[in-house]
């Protein structure tokens, strides 16, 4: 049965975007005073809150200490009110555990961990409202939080999901599109060097199309990085005015 028409003949998507268009990204850094770094990011209707502690000395099991670099601890959770049906368990289920792992891998590739041997960096991300692209929103929010904490990174890490329908890649999927049954791919990119921090896909896709899809994802990530860069600069300006520099 044919489901929703994800891409109309006129080239519009369900929410009126064109295929390569991103949702509106809005972000603020330094939303909490107590944490070392924090950020709030909205990508369309998906809203995420990221908090960073550290680098500090190892807590919990000391056996995880790494002697040449910092240990990155990530925790992903979704607010119970973030989805259309109330979530019973905000974190700790399989999906969240997997997401935490992905975040950890992404930031291990981006943060210059070798500067802080035998220490730990904690990244906590919470989805306040979920409307597709949870992973990418988390990565983008966490990037801002890490920058806010003043932890050196190789580059921004920007993430974006892309779907593939009617031979056309669609950038930055919303929930309706994600659940529409097309194959999608999540990609986290260090945009300046073009290095891929994480690439994840768990659907079927013909090999021939993979390249165009990655290409589209990278373009989208670069778009996100521009927005993030602007947010950081804006934030710095505000902070420097406040501190009177």
């Amino acid at each position: 049965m044919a489901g929703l028409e994800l891409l109309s003949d006129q080239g519009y998507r369900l929410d009126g975007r064109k295929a390569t268009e991103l949702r509106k990204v809005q972000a603020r850094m330094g939303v909490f005073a107590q944490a070392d770094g924090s950020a709030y990011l909205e990508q369309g209707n998906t809203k995420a809150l990221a908090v960073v502690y550290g680098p500090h000395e190892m807590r919990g099991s000391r056996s995880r200490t790494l002697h040449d670099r910092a240990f990155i601890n990530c925790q992903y959770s979704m607010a119970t009110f973030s989805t259309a049906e109330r979530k019973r368990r905000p974190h700790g289920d399989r999906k969240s555990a997997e997401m935490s792992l992905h975040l950890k891998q992404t930031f291990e590739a981006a943060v210059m961990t070798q500067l802080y041997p035998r220490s730990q960096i904690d990244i906590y991300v919470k989805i306040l409202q979920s409307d597709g692209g949870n992973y990418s929103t988390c990565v983008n929010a966490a990037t801002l939080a890490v920058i806010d904490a003043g932890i050196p990174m190789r580059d921004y890490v920007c993430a974006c999901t892309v779907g593939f329908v009617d031979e056309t890649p669609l950038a930055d999927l919303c929930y309706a599109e994600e659940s529409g049954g097309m194959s999608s791919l999540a990609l986290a990119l260090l945009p300046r060097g073009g290095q891929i921090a994480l690439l994840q896909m768990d659907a079927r896709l013909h090999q021939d199309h993979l390249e165009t899809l990655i290409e589209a994802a990278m373009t989208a990530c670069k778009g996100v990085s521009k927005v993030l860069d602007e947010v950081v600069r804006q934030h710095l300006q505000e902070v420097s005015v406040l501190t009177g520099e």
Partner: protein
Amino acid sequence: MKHDSSNQHLTQLPTSTHTPENQQNLQPDQDPPQPGQKQHKVEETAAGGKVLPGDLTHYVMPDATVVVDFLEILEFRQLQGIVFTQTACEALQSKGRRYYNRLRNLVKDPRHDCVLFANEFQEYSYCPREKGESQDKWMTRCVYSAAVWYYNHLAGMMSMVMITEDQEAVAQYSSLNSGVFVISIQDYLQNFWPELQAAHELYSSISQVLQEKEGEDSQKEFSEHLPVEVLEAGIKSGRYIQGTLNVSKHRAQNEAFITTEGLSSRNTDLSSDVLVFGGKHRNRAVHGDVVVVELLPKSEWRGRTTSLTEGQGDEKTEDDDSSAMPTGRVVGILQRNWRDYVVTFPTRDGTQNQSRNSQRILAIPWDRRIPKIRISTQQAEALQDHRVVVRMDSWDSTSLYPNGHSVRVLGRAGELETEVQTILMENCIHVPPFSDAQLREMPLNSPEKPWKVDPVQVRRRRDLRGTHLVFSIDPRGCEDVDDTLSVRRLADGTLLELGVHIADVTHFVQEGSLTDLEARTRATTYYLADRRYDMLPAVLSSDLCSLLGGVDRYAMSVMWELDAHTLAVNKVWFGRTLIRSSYQLHYELAQALLNGEPADVPELEQVGSEEKDAKLAELTQALEMLTHIARHLRAQRDRGGALELEGVEVRAQLDEDRNITALVPRQPLEVHETVAECMIYANHWVARKIQETFPSQALLRRHPPPRQELFRQLVETAKAQGFTVDTRTNKALADSLDRAVDLQDPLVNRLLRMMATQAMSQAMYFSTGAQPQDQYYHYGLALDRYTHFTSPIRRYADIIVHRLLTAAIAMDTGAEPKAPGSNKEVEETAHHINSKNRAAQRAQNLSMALFQCLYFKEKDPQTDPRCVANAVIYAIRDNGVLVFIPEYGVKGPVYLRNKEGQVVSVGPDGGCDWQSGSVRRHLDRISTESVGGSATFRLFEHVTVRISVQSSSCHADSLNLELIRNRPHGGPEAQRGPSQGRGQLVQEVVQEAVRLVQEAQQREARPRLSKEEKEFSQTRTPNLYSLLEEVRELALRDLDLDLDLDLDRSHPVCATTA
């Protein structure tokens, strides 16, 4: 929900390169519309290049309810400048996928002047739904605000007309803005399109239906359909079976079958189709719908009826010996496949009108498989006995019959033109005359401005004009020459070069042009008994694309370099060429040259005798070489198991005035086979080429091996006659058919071949990406890959193949790999062409049958000797036999038991009459027992039948056959001795045909028919045509299934006369 998200996701363009189209949509004031062309920029981007014409007085924007209820009116091509709104689109989508797709196609089709405006994605035309506002009101407001925006966007240069059925909206909005008019659809039609009568009629018929709908009530006649989710779950779990409903032609009231073919059926244990018995179990499904059935318990299973019944309404419920098959009932319908139906309004008499409302008529569809349709109309009186096109609207569970509305009146039943239009309509063939816009695309070729070869093209193409002797061999008088041949010895003599040059249609028909679209829609040239509907405009099909003699033409060529001795292929060259055909030969002439008989070649009449001899020798040598190669190719294919199913064919030869000058049996000419073989070879090599270059998107033609169980009748029939037929492989079948010759009766072999043909599956087009490679095989021709390349003038498939080949050649020279279409598109096109080809075939057969009936209608069956004919029994049924009448090429049933239960009894002189008695059926014979004694009829026995026409006011007339003697009909047929061979049969056939010609000419002389000819401006000799078709039928050649055998030449008659 959708709407607020669209509002919140305001556009954030990630990079600066993304600026163009969308921003224009969002910020119209930044880019003020320019006068002139630029003002249509929105449409241009929105609909992919479609632009509304600027020279209209207004653009019209229909309201959501108008689109939902009256889309059919908006489908008229005459209505121009329609702007559909997204709001209306979504309203339509909620009505059903089918309707939505229709709108989509409408917007896509460049022949319709309409565009889609995504008003809800436009910041300034979007209006959020207010609290407490009803959906309808909101949609109307949306459309109005879109209309206002559009008006302002066009800077007031074009008035906008919004049409709505909501009178309040008319009152509320009409005076708000000066350039935006709000009127009702009726006013709109009356004010702007007063002359478009068809639209007015359609409007009244639809609104009548809408009014009727409101007053529905009464008890349930059918059980409700289950919801889709339940059906899908049921199909998945195997509880229900999904399939296409096929109503039995002869017992339309009761029997229908579900064919699961082509659909993934989980029940692999269900090998056969599912029977749906009776109207209750069919539960409002109509022939062709995709339905879901539930199997009944085994105790309620029934068998299919195999006895012959007469027409419809025959409620015979006898159980016969055929085994019970799975029986089920319809629980839901997944997809309605309703099309336009032709119905006949019954003659009115007082008793027939049972319905309470006198305006409701039960109209009887022409197709017996379709239930009666209830039509609400006020024109019932005027439409009596007229054939009308109707559409079904709905079928509620409270109603015994579906509701519909009339669309178009075709004419009075029984009139020739009406009947022909009915045939076209019933097969979904739409052949409007080519529009002016389409003809404008055509190159000019008039005496004042003759068409010339473009020097640019000369440089690009290989010029064969000086180097190659190119000639064509076609039926005499042929106008559309698709193909020419050339053959020559290369310099050292050890190599031969064979060339097939095909008209380069794709040079003139650009992909995506209006002509291309029209050709694609038609997919093939339609040949009816009395007329022809061309796929391409005449300037192409019979002039610029036709490879006529003595003029320069563009061609697409395949040239092989063959070893002169072994004939092995050394090299193949494909490419575009420029040719000038030296000789436009016809078959008989070519054969005469081959045989060394004296012949006049028209091209050499002016030439001196010495030069003439030299040229003749050159031509004859080329023909001989060609024949030599073709024999070799044929032998090669025969070893692979190619089937020969064709029989004798007779062809009429026409002079300039299109009178028949002679009838020539076609079969003995080897040159036919020679030409056909070269074409098959070219098709095969092109198929190889495009398949290798585009492994997943080439258009090929495959002929799947037949299902063995379908051969059962053939094998059993042959056994009854003492032959064994081996059907395991195509080679075994071909060999055993060759052996199955009865010297006493050559008809036996022809009938066996006919049955074999019937058992075959249809050859069809497909995209190579959609089938595994082992399925590419062409069973009939015994080739691993095959396609159609050689007749681009009359088949659209060939045009696609030409484009594929062009792309393949371009890739060889280093161009970017660029396929003309994706696998999905090619497969869709292939499906379309296949279905159109089947429709064309059906239409051709139906029009043939129509003319047969017209022929016999004018004769009195009791007195006219021509209504009595010799017939051969070729199948046995429970209460009768099926016979074939070679004289007229008619197949039909003969009843041995009539409706009163009487059976045929044979008198001592062989004459037959009806007496009470019983019928017994055996494997190879059927016998009747009656007071007058017993009579037995065996397979392949010759009998005499009387042909009469069974008239029917609502359906097509049919021929009725009645047994009058159990011996062959008198005349030469009866006394034919065993020594007589096939050739003599041919002569008899010819004599027979000549007799028919005279009859036809006599008939033509009658004033009534010729008046019709004038009135409907048909071709000058319609009945001659039917006669030629009859003659062709004698050859048993078309047999419903084209097998590609020599298909390139399968329309010689049509080509010569039309």
